[in-house]
């Protein structure tokens, strides 16, 4: 392939023109591709905003869906918002501690061999499709016992775990070894070094990773289909009964023919996308800053 670059022929001016034209064409195509992706994002977000804004008013956040499709305009998704809050909150409380502890083991204790095997396990877990995780939780704890919000949380936590572990691991690896050595040299035991020196230095990056993971699973529908779908219409905070959620609300309303319900779906999509995008953007900006501080501007 590289012989193409350097043939005697390529030195004639005719060939130089051709090479330049080819180069322009390719540059144009690449620029167009990037524009396409950005345009797609803007189109998707734009149409969600355009169609969703009409549904959004105070009732949308404080009322529950109308049961038989009457008076849809003044109904809302309060139950779905509360449900998502409960389900995602529980998922975070399961995945976050385990994910961070696992990352500490992988980065601070594990011998290299063990580390690489376990990292692969987390990667593979990360690659398991969300719907498969949903089915797993269904056959594991739902089938025969009934759905519940916490079972949905469990499914989301499985998706979140590898994300949290991976991001925490990356931040811990950035903590300079000199800090650990200084602490150990002062006579602090390992656990003290880890908890009082390493973790505080990494906390910004860990929060960033956790926020990104939360934003990611908050929009997941597939794990909830079989675990927390058969929810009632009332606002409930009970994790041991199936709760509604914003993604499930979008999923079920989108299939309705009623345009008023579709508008509700767009409104819910706008709420969800706003939360996810804002959380991701803020986390990224914050993460960039804390990373820069950790690596001393490198």
């Amino acid at each position, binding site marked *: *392939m*590289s012989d193409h*670059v350097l043939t005697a022929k390529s030195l004639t001016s005719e060939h130089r023109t051709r090479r330049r034209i080819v*180069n322009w064409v*390719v540059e144009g195509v*690449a620029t167009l*591709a*990037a524009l*396409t*992706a950005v345009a*797609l*994002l803007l189109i*998707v977000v734009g*149409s*969600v905003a355009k*169609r969703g804004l009409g549904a959004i008013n105070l009732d949308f956040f404080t009322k529950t869906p109308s049961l038989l499709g009457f008076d849809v305009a003044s109904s809302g998704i309060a139950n779905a918002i509360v449900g998502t809050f409960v389900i995602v909150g529980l998922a975070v409380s399961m995945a976050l*501690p*385990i994910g*961070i*502890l*696992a990352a*500490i*083991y*992988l*980065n*601070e*204790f594990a*011998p290299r061999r063990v580390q690489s095997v*376990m990292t*692969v*396990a987390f990667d593979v*877990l990360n690659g*398991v*499709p969300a719907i*498969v995780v949903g*089915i797993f939780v269904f056959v594991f704890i739902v089938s025969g016992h009934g759905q519940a919000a916490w079972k949905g949380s469990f499914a989301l936590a*499985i998706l979140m*775990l590898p994300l949290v*572990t991976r991001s925490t691991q990356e931040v811990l*690896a950035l903590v300079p*070894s000199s800090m650990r050595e200084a602490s150990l040299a002062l006579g602090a035991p*390992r*656990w003290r070094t880890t908890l009082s020196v390493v973790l505080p230095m990494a906390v910004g990056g860990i929060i960033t990773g956790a926020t990104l993971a939360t934003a990611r699973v908050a*929009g*997941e529908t*597939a794990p909830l289909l*079989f675990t927390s*779908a*058969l929810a009632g219409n009332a606002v409930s905070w009970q994790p041991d009964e199936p709760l509604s959620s914003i993604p499930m609300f*979008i*999923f079920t309303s*989108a*299939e309705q023919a009623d345009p008023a319900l579709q508008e509700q779906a*767009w409104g819910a*999509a706008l709420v*969800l*996308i706003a939360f*996810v*995008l804002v959380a*991701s953007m803020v986390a990224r900006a914050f993460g960039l800053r804390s990373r820069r501080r950790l690596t001393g501007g490198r």
Partner: protein
Amino acid sequence: MASVSETVVDPAAATLRRRGRFSPGDAFLYGITLAAALSALVLLVLLARELIADAWPAVQEFGLGFVTSRTWDPSTDVYGAATFLFGTALTSFAALLLAAPLSIAIALFLTELAPRWLRGPVGTLVEMLAAVPSVVLGLWGILVMGPWIVEHVGPFLHRTLGWTPFFKTEPATGPSMLSAILILTIMMVPIISSICRELFLNVPRELREGALALGATRWEVVRGVIFPYARAGVAAALILGLGRAIGEAIAVTQVIGNNEAITWNLFDPGDTLASRIASLYVGATTKLQISSLVYLALILLAFSLVVNLLARVIINRVAARHQVSA
């Protein structure tokens, strides 16, 4: 990353062990972190075990013939996965065909072409595309993209490419495999392009500059230096993107129409493994049907394992090569 922690941890740990000062606090922290780290392995084993156990009735009933049988009939309780396997293969490979050049071109733009101040924002926007929840993308797919395909893109494709098996009929109203392919493409692009961007950034500066000094144009640098250097990594990125497409359930089930048919006509509705599971979330009635759904999930799990391990093997090989040359 591995090498960093290696140099950090091992000398310290060794010193501690030599001094015999592994305090109770250390043992405790070691214990709970190890338990947490084992959770991934435990979950994977549990996942496989539970799925196999619950798919077993269907496995016994239909055996391996499950994957070649086209029937999915709740009224006679006979199930087969062939149509869904076909749908999964068709939609994800078609999406890969669209997403691969697009993502690579985006990565090239972000690493080679864009002015420095533009790289960050554009890169972030492309990655934000991955943050759009699939249910929202699916909603957009049915209510905005679907009608647009039926009214504009479909007739055009039928006119120009109607002689191929893919666009034989006039576009039908509503859901189609083409919608699913386009939605999957949108989902794959940010994944593949962000990995490719990392790969292209890792191409050593001297190689790039050497080629430029020899008079190569930017495209020739890309073709002669960057592509050969990043080839294996790009392959891994494409495989990971494919894995994402194979496993996507929600957005696909929203736009594909859940139809049991093996057809190459992309305007027809179809179904995929993941989408069929999702579409039956309240509709599975008999024990055998549920077991068959789990069988579908088991096939998906096997695919995702193969895909991820394959990508990992490639990435590890690339990493090893770079460490040697570095």
